[in-house]
């Protein structure tokens, strides 16, 4: 069997207007990278699925070493408390080589 190393996969669903800001904070809290998917959806702030290209949803995925996750989540929680609509969830994942996710983005 292949040995898999545990990492945390952080998922954030929110408006694309927050993209730059969130990317800045991934950098700050030591992520090695991130992936963004375009999405539409519905939640407590109503439908966000105009798909007109203005004001769309994004879903962001960040794989992080478990020990860096906490500070990142604190930052996200502060944003949520200020009223930003972030749907956040964490998934346990296994990766082939954990070193890849230890290197910080420049």
């Amino acid at each position, binding site marked *: 069997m292949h040995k898999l190393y545990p990492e945390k996969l952080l998922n954030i669903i929110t408006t694309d207007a*927050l993209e730059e800001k969130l990317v800045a904070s991934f950098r700050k809290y030591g992520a090695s990278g991130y992936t963004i998917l375009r999405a539409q959806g519905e939640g407590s702030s109503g439908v966000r699925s105009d798909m007109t290209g203005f004001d769309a949803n994004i879903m962001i995925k960040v794989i992080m070493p478990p020990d860096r996750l906490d500070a990142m989540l604190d930052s996200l929680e502060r944003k949520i408390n200020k009223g930003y609509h972030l749907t956040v969830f964490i998934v346990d994942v296994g990766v082939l080589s954990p070193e890849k996710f230890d290197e910080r983005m420049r």
Partner: protein
Amino acid sequence: MPSLSNLLLPAVLFFVLGVIARIVKSDLRFPPDLAKVLSIYLLMAIGLHGGQALAQANLLIALSSVMWALIMGFTLPIIGYLILLASKRVGLLDAAAISAHYGSVSAGTFLTAIAYLDNAGIEHEKYPLIMLAIMETPAIVVGLLLAAKARQTIAARANKAGNTIDTTEVVSVPEDDEGDANNFSHLLRDALTNGSVIILIGSMIIGAIAIPSGMQKLTPFVDDIFMGVLCLFLFEMGHVAGRRLGDLRQVGFLLALFGIFMPVMGGILGVYIGTYALNFSIGGVTLVAVLAASASYIAVPPAMRLAVPEANPSYYLTLSLGITFPFNVIVGIPLFHKLAQLIAV
């Protein structure tokens, strides 16, 4: 009768078709981003057009247009805010976010007005184009200021009530741990370098400085297919507006009324400013009225999501997109034209 001929414009008919498609629950779906591509094109085309004309503009009138654009952009949201407070239908922060939209403008409405004038053979000044570009920004700024004010009031009330709400969270524009996040200067820069503003102002400058022979080659792209693209854009926007229309019951009757009152009030103000302050022709006056009357649904919503995250987007999107936009396209434009004629006499 102007109102009828307006309804028989292809662009307006396509808007209505989009609304109807939603009402009959058609599975019609526009591909993601189509509206964005079309609006990039429309802003480019209208900018190039305006730029060529403005190359020979009178600087004094241009400056005066800019000044009046700023005045309208700052005043309208404040009026709106006070009315909303008086109505007691929404919270302070919602009131701030909603009213910001009315200081800004809707390019879609503006372009429909141009199609309307074109079709009626009415000439118009090009200065309103500059005003269109200018008015994106002040509304966002005043929205921020109103929200800051609202947060202070909320904090003050909480204190009075002996409430233990953490006032540092509400007093100021929320300061992020990422530092600059939503502080004022950051948001101001965002407003000034907003994508639509860049395209519009950039295209106007290019239209003004590019060599004429080069510009001529652009005519088929910029002029000839413009009306068709506008039809397609309004078709999709009608479809989007139609969905928001369905959210009407969520905002309630009084708030919906606000979405009609604001453009009427703004339009009247615009007609006066266009006629007496700017001395424009009837065509130009109509456009100024449309600028004042229309509410943003492109630039301001995401700005408010960032700056006033506490406000409920359903309110401002339904009002600006589901009520004010259709009202202006179908009723407002011919109405303001009529008013401009009446006053001009």
